[in-house]
C-alpha cells in the first residue's frame, strides 16, 4: 500500500517536472509528439493485457477509444444541439469546467468504455482467434457508424471545440498510472491466471481458473484505459470525428504491440514510441524525396518484413530490464 502511494507520488511529481521542463525549453512540435507517445503507451499497454497476457486477439480498441473520447467530450465541451421542434440551436454550457473538471470527465469516459468492454466481452467469450478478431472489429465499426448517426455530437462532421485540457502533465500522469498498474497486474495472481489462459485455456480451466470471468475482466481493464486514452487524445487534438477512431486506429495499436513483442510490457512501450515517432520522421523523408504517400507504404513493408523475419517482435515475451541490459553490455555477466 505504501509502495503504491509512493509510486503514485513519484509519478505525479515526475510528470509535473517533465511538464514544466517541456513547456519551458522544448519546441511545441516535439512536445506534441511526446504527448502522442504518452497516449500511444496507454493504448499499447492496455491492449497488451487483452492481446498479450490473456491471448484474446482484439481488433476493437479504437471503438473503446471513441466511446471514451466522445463521453468525456460530452462533459467538457460547449455543445450546440439543434432542437428539432423549434428548429433553433441550443447552446449548452460544459457540465464540468476547468482543468479539475477534466479528470472526472476522463474517468467517466473510461468507465463508459469499460462498460462497453463488458458488453463486448461477455457475448464474445466463446469465440477464439480469428473469429474474435473479426467480431471485435465489427464492434468497432458499429460504434463508428452509430457515432456517425448521432446528430447531437456532430455526426460525420465530428465534434469541434474540445477545450485544451490534455497537457503533458495529465497525459504523462495517466501513462504512468497505466504502466504501473499493468506491472502490478502482471505480477498478481490475476495476471498469472491470464497468462495461463493464453497458454492453454482448457488446462487453465481444469486448474480451477475461472476462465470466462477473467477474460471479461481483462476486456474491462483494457477498455477502461483505452477510453482514458481516447479522452486524452480528443482533448489534445481538440476536434474529434468518427473517422479518427476507424479500424485503422485499432490496427495501429495492434502493430505497436506486435512490433515490441506481444506479451511484453516494455515491448509495448517501445513499440508505441517507435511507431509514433517513425511516421513523423518519415514525414521529412517524404517531403525531401517528393514522394507523397511513401510513408504508409514503408510502414506496411516494415510490418510484413518484421512478421516474416521476426514474428515474435523485438523483445518476444521478454522484458527489457536492467539485468538484460547488463548482460548485453560488453564485459557484463553472462
Amino acid at each position, binding site marked *: 500500500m505504501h509502495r503504491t502511494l509512493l509510486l503514485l507520488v513519484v509519478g505525479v511529481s515526475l510528470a509535473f517536472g517533465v511538464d514544466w521542463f517541456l513547456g519551458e525549453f522544448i519546441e511545441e512540435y516535439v512536445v506534441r509528439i511526446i504527448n502522442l507517445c504518452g497516449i500511444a503507451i496507454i493504448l499499447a499497454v492496455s491492449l497488451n493485457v487483452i492481446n498479450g497476457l490473456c491471448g484474446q486477439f482484439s481488433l476493437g480498441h479504437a471503438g473503446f477509444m471513441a466511446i471514451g473520447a466522445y463521453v468525456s467530450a460530452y462533459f467538457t465541451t460547449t455543445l450546440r444541439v439543434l432542437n428539432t421542434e423549434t428548429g433553433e440551436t441550443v447552446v449548452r454550457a460544459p457540465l464540468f469546467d476547468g482543468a479539475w473538471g477534466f479528470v472526472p470527465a476522463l474517468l467517466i469516459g473510461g468507465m463508459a468504455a469499460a462498460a462497453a468492454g463488458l458488453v463486448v466481452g461477455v457475448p464474445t467469450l466463446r469465440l477464439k482467434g480469428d473469429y474474435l*478478431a473479426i467480431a471485435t472489429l465489427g464492434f468497432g465499426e*458499429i460504434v463508428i457508424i452509430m457515432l456517425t448517426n448521432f446528430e447531437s455530437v456532430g455526426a460525420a462532421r465530428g465534434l469541434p471545440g474540445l477545450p485544451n485540457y490534455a497537457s503533458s502533465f495529465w497525459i504523462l500522469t495517466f501513462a504512468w498510472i497505466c504502466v504501473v498498474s499493468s506491472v502490478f497486474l502482471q505480477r498478481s495472481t490475476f495476471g498469472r491466471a491470464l497468462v495461463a489462459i493464453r497458454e492453454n485455456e482448457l488446462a487453465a480451466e481444469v486448474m480451477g481458473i475461472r476462465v470466462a470471468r477473467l477474460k471479461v475482466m481483462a476486456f474491462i481493464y483494457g477498455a477502461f484505459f483505452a477510453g482514458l486514452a481516447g479522452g486524452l487524445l480528443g482533448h489534445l487534438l481538440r476536434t474529434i470525428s468518427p473517422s479518427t477512431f476507424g479500424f485503422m486506429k485499432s490496427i495501429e495499436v495492434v502493430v505497436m504491440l506486435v512490433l515490441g513483442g506481444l506479451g511484453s510490457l516494455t515491448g509495448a512501450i517501445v513499440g508505441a514510441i517507435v511507431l509514433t515517432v517513425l511516421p513523423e520522421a518519415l514525414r521529412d523523408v517524404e517531403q525531401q524525396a517528393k514522394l507523397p504517400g511513401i510513408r*504508409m507504404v514503408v510502414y506496411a513493408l516494415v510490418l510484413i518484413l518484421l512478421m516474416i523475419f521476426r514474428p515474435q517482435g523485438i523483445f518476444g515475451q521478454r522484458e527489457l530490464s536492467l539485468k538484460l541490459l547488463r548482460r548485453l553490455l560488453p564485459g557484463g555477466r553472462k
Partner: protein
Amino acid sequence: MLELLATAEPGGTSLAQALLQQVANGIAKGSVYALIAVGYTMVYGVLQLINFAHGEVYMLGAYFSYYPAKWMGYTTDPEDPTFVPAKVPLYVVGFLFVCSMACCAFLGMLIERFAYRPLRNSSRLAALITAIGVSLLLQNGGIMLFKADPRGFPTLIEQSSVDLGLVALTNTKIIIVVVAAVMMTGLHLFVQKTRPGAAMRACSFDMRTARLMGVNVDGTIGLTFAIGSIMAAVAGVLVAMDQPTIDPLMGLMAGLKAFVAAVLGGIGSIPGAALGGLLLGVTESVVGTFSTTYAEAVAFVLLILVLLVKPSGLLGKSGREKV
C-alpha cells in the same frame, strides 16, 4: 428506383413495391459480395488465414481494366472536356475482363508466394498481421500510384433500365447477377468434379495427408489464390462498370463485408459464400430503404449475431476441439 421511393407511402402498396425493388437491387449487390467472398472462403478453407488483402485485389481488378481502357483511348479525358471517347466494342470489353483476371491471378499468386508462404509454419497471428500488412501496402501503394481521388471508369456498356414486371433494374445490374451466377456455378463444378478441385478439397481437409498422397500442396494453394483473385477481379470490373467511379479505397469496406458474407454462409463453403453474399446484400438494401447510414452497420450486426448463435455459419461444418 428513386421515383419509386419518392412515391412510396408507409403502409401502402407502393412501399411493398419499393421493398421489392430493394430486394432486386440487393441481389445485384449480394452477387458482388458473393464473388469476393469465395476468395476469402477458399483461402480460409485451405490455410485458416483471413486474407485481408483480398479486398485490395478486388480494387486492383478494377484498375487493371481501367488502365488498358485508358491506353486504348476509351476513357474521358479530364484535361480535354470536348474529347468524346469511342464506344467500347464487345471484344474489347472481353479483353478488359481477361486482362484484369490475368493480372489479378498473377498478383494473388505473388502475394501467396512472397508474403504468406514464408509464414506457413509460424503462428496464425503472425500470418493475420502479415495479411493486414499486405492490405495496407496495396492500399497505400494504390493511393501513391493512382492518387486518392476517384476516377471515372469508361462506359463499357451503355446503361439502360430494364423492366422486369414488378421491378426495374439497370442492364449492368442484370449482367452482374448473371455473370456472378455463371462463375459461381462454374467454380462449384470445378471444385467438385475436376482433379485440381479434388486436390483443393483434400488440402483443406488435411494438408499433411494430402501431401503424403502425392498432392502438390504448394501448387494447389497457389491455384486457390489465383482462382479467388480471378473472382475478385471480375467483381471489381463489374462494380466499376455499374458505378462508374473507382478509387484506391474501394476495396476496404467491400472486402470486410465480403468477409462477413463468407462467415455468414459458413467459412470454407462455396455455396455458403453465395448464400451469405446474397443474404447480406438483400438485408443491407432493405434496411437502406429506411436509413442509408444505418445500412452500413447491418453487415457487422449480422456478423456478431451469426458468430454468437451459430459460429460455423449457415452452411459450415462445426468442429469440436479435441483435448
